[in-house]
């Protein structure tokens, strides 16, 4: 194992941190109407992070979680998964800022919002990249604390309630994660995953089960999976659009990669694939059923997020049994992120619309926006050639390959159910009616996102080449 101590290897993360500090500082000296400077700083930091992440992309050096190619500070893995997570998170935050400009510009907390977005993104990246329980615990805090603030930012009663729910569930999950970390490190004799891999093999199974389950529970909160998913729809509905877009996308990326890393090192004596598979099934089924009758577009997307997490847990379940799992997870994450953000961009572009019926007439008045909505919703369903189709294809393949064919069937049926509510929204958009006025930046973000959705689907070769060099499985 190569141990690198150069902080330069963490340049993207440092960019984000520095960007957050700079944004906040700048914001506190800027007049209210000139906070765009802070935004500019944040965007610059993100672009810098993106460039440095792209330059540091590990290429084809490591496809798997196995022995990492490179580790910084003994706890930060520089592998493909980290590289992809960096790019996805940075791109997602950029898109969130893009779609949130109309909503955030000129508000009292604009620069704070950007700073928190950057910090949350940073947390997600560290969460995904670490292979040490201690860093995992801290990264969990870094990823969740900005979310609490972002949810409560708009200060409406609903937002306050959502922030409360998020916080209380998050606190419990954090405690569970710490409990798990305690137990695991206690019986394994160390907190690094390499120590876990060796230490847990001979450890008592019951203790491993409790410890790993507790850590997993913490990550499930961050990802929004059963049984700690309840905050997701609430927060999505209560928070502002940009915050909702952020919290349904970025923390999930980090948490799911982290969960995959964790499951990868757990000893094979316990049936982790089965458990995670069942949790995945429960997550997607519950969320899809709950989403069926939603009339609030935001809440619908919240449940949709939970259901997507269910699909995303499938490769996590089989991460030990097939080498196709990791690339599949990364592909799906990338596809999901761009798709979900596109849907939120449409929401942001029609700020007055809350319920599905508010979108009536969209196709007539704003055909491009309706097209973007259609593309994103069909992508969420998994229609080729969109981004999530690629994700679903790879994920289903991986899960089947990993021995969870039943889960693939469950997921397919769930996809069918999900069609119901995605279609309901789409149909409303194509009905005649008078739509609410639209916002410019978000409109652009929606179009960019829709193009991204198609690009990921059509440029599938490129995407999969990034996530797992060439051969899957």
């Amino acid at each position, binding site marked *: 194992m190569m141990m690198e101590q150069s902080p330069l290897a963490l340049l993207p993360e440092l960019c984000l941190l520095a960007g957050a500090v700079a944004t906040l500082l700048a914001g506190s000296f800027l007049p209210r109407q000139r906070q765009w400077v802070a935004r500019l700083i944040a965007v610059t930091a993100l672009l810098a992070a993106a460039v440095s992440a792209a330059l540091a992309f590990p290429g084809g050096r490591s496809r798997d979680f196995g022995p990492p190619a490179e580790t910084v500070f003994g706890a930060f893995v520089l592998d493909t998964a980290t590289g992809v997570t960096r790019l996805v998170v940075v791109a997602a935050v950029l898109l969130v800022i893009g779609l949130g400009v109309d909503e955030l510009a000129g508000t009292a907390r604009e620069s704070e919002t950007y700073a928190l977005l950057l910090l949350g993104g940073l947390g997600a990246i560290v969460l995904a990249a670490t292979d040490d329980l*201690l860093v995992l615990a801290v990264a969990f805090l870094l990823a969740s604390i900005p979310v609490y603030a972002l949810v409560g930012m708009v200060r409406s009663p609903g937002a306050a309630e959502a922030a*409360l729910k998020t*916080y209380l569930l998050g606190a419990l999950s954090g*405690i569970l994660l710490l*409990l798990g970390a305690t137990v695991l*490190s*206690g019986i394994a004799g160390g907190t690094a995953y390499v120590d876990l891999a060796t230490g847990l093999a001979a450890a008592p199974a019951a203790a491993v089960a409790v410890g790993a389950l507790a850590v997993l529970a913490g990550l499930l909160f961050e990802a929004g999976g059963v049984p700690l998913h309840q905050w997701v729809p*609430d927060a999505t509905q209560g928070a502002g659009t940009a915050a909702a877009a952020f919290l349904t996308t970025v923390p999930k990326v980090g948490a799911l990669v982290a969960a995959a890393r964790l499951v990868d090192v757990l000893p094979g004596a316990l049936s982790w694939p089965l458990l995670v598979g069942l949790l995945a099934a429960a997550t997607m089924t519950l969320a899809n059923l709950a989403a069926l009758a939603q009339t609030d577009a935001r809440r619908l997307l919240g449940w949709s997020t939970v259901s997507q997490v269910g699909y995303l847990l499938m490769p996590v379940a089989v991460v030990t049994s097939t080498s196709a799992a990791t690339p599949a997870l990364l592909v799906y994450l990338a596809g999901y992120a761009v798709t979900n953000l596109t849907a939120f961009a449409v929401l942001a572009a029609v700020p007055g619309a809350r319920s599905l019926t508010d979108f009536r007439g969209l196709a007539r008045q704003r055909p491009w926006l309706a097209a973007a909505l259609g593309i994103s919703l069909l992508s969420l369903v998994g229609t080729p050639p969109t981004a999530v189709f690629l994700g679903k294809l790879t994920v289903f393949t991986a899960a089947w390959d990993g021995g969870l064919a039943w889960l693939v069937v469950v997921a397919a049926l769930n996809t069918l159910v999900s069609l119901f509510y995605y279609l309901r929204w789409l149909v409303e958009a194509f009905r005649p009616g008078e739509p609410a006025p639209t916002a410019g930046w978000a409109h652009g973000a929606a179009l960019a996102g829709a193009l991204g959705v198609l690009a990921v689907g059509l440029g599938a070769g490129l995407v999969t080449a990034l996530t797992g060099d060439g051969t899957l499985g």
Partner: protein
Amino acid sequence: MTLQTMLLVAAALFSVGLYGAISQQVVVMVMMGLELMLNGVILAAAAFWWFLSPTPDGQVLLLVVITAMTVEMAMGFAVATLLHRSRQSDMTDMATDLSR
């Protein structure tokens, strides 16, 4: 004092805290329950460290737990304040607009 007894006490603290977190209505009281759970975790961490692997890792873990507790409590107060200001309530039961 053995590992088992310490863990037993930690489990008791954790369970009592869980009881409080579930049963209490006032946000601050729920937070107290959570703190009590963390208290159990601290004790368990100390026990594991002493009886199983007295490495520096375990100490750092304790430090992290304490940090986490502090940070979470700070956020808890902030959220409670927000709730209090925006809803004139500090009860979790009163905040159930977002459901179904």
